[in-house]
């Protein structure tokens, strides 16, 4: 019973073109934004399966970047998220892979991101209808369902202690 509310089915109000490739991904980006306490300075993004094949057509990259900049699913600026990120000095790169080794679902993404000396790695899946979940966080398997109706800030709060402090060598250790 992953879908819990009528508003998971009728909704979200969102910018197109795809609830799973756009809206659900905005939410995954939002979770990262909230976890880091603001937009990341850099991110390394890996898109798997359906995401890797069709991300350009669906604006999946714009959705994820927009989400990490704090834009919500119905923000018409998502269209220009990549340009906005460039202007703000948010550096990211995108890698494409066929199968996600961590979670079996066609719409999966892994993001390594950092802000103000803290780093994190999150795996997210977009389940359809704008519903998504975080299945991997800083090396641990988790199950954090994200609905666009929820307060994502509240959702991310308990996990903020799992952020890692980056060392000068670029490696990381438990804070």
């Amino acid at each position, binding site marked *: *019973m*992953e*879908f*819990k*509310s*009528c*508003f*998971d*089915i*009728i*909704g*979200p*109000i*969102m*910018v*197109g*073109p*795809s*609830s*799973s*490739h*756009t*809206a659900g991904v905005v939410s995954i980006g939002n979770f990262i934004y909230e976890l880091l306490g603001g937009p990341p300075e850099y991110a390394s993004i890996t898109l798997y*399966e*359906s995401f890797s*094949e*069709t*991300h*350009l*057509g*669906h*604006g999946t990259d714009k959705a994820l970047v927009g989400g990490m900049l704090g834009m919500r699913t*119905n923000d*018409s600026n*998502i*269209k220009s998220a*990549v340009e906005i990120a460039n202007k703000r000095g948010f550096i990211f790169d995108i890698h494409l892979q066929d199968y996600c080794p961590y979670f079996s*679902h*066609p*719409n999966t993404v892994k993001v390594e991101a950092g802000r103000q000396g803290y780093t994190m790695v999150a795996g997210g899946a*977009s*389940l*359809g*209808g*704008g519903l998504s979940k975080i299945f991997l966080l800083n090396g641990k398997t988790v199950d954090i369902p994200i609905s666009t109706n929820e307060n994502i800030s509240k959702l991310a709060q308990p996990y903020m202690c799992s952020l890692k402090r980056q060392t000068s060598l670029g490696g990381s250790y438990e804070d």
Partner: protein
Amino acid sequence: MKIESMKELIQQCEEEGKTISEVMLDMEVENSGKTHEALIDKMTARLQQMKDTIDLGIQDPSSSPSGISGGDALRVNEYVKKESILSGNYIGDAMSFSIATSESNAKMGIIVATPTAGAAGVLPGVLFSLHKNDNTPFEKLVEGLFTASALGYVIANRSFISGAAGGCQAEVGSATAMAAGAIVELKGGSPEQAVHAAAIALKSLLGLVCDPVAGLVEVPCIKRNVMGTAIAFSAADLSLAGVKSRIPCDEVIKAMYDIGSEMPRTLKETALGGLAATETGQQVKERMFKKKGGFE
């Protein structure tokens, strides 16, 4: 409180003497702790957004950034107004409203996912056609959204609603089933009839693959939304006439799940097979990827 099958949904309605719409609203009140009024307001905002999207889309002659869609809502709307439309005004208006919504979606315009963005045209198309041709008031259309959401909720939890997971049958198929059931309830049919309509609609879309050209939610998605509105009206008419689905709705949903699970990866929103793999589909893709960053 949760409802796990169409059978349970009908039972619940019959025991309490309520419509599907009322049962869904009660369940949402119980699960969310919010008031009926607050939830109705929230759903009304979604209906209003659907209308705004249609009003904007129906007079928009522009093409999508890819150049493979746009302007058809205007075209169909003019035709419905001028000619005597073969499929009648209900389906005619639903078709133009549906294209208006799906064309906006392709341009990264604001839409309401029902249940997904790829299938966002079916339900608004059907509801605002009823509004125009029947004077069905706004409040009733909001009820229709609750009915549709209940049907979609059962389908989503028993099967899938994303093209990547289950093909287009999961997206336009689910949306069409939801729309068919909503029409039946708005026209005074029983919960059982609404569920039969949903089953009949979903059956006629079983096996439909998700093969978007260049991975864009445009070809064939926009026109499949249009066909969804026509099927929704036909399925609703059949059910209101007393025709039943010989296969119970829950079993149809199970069949959709099984078919989607067996569907090859190339036909589940990867843009590797079907129409995406045609000569023209490939040409569109090549053209897109030559542009820097693909778009705009």
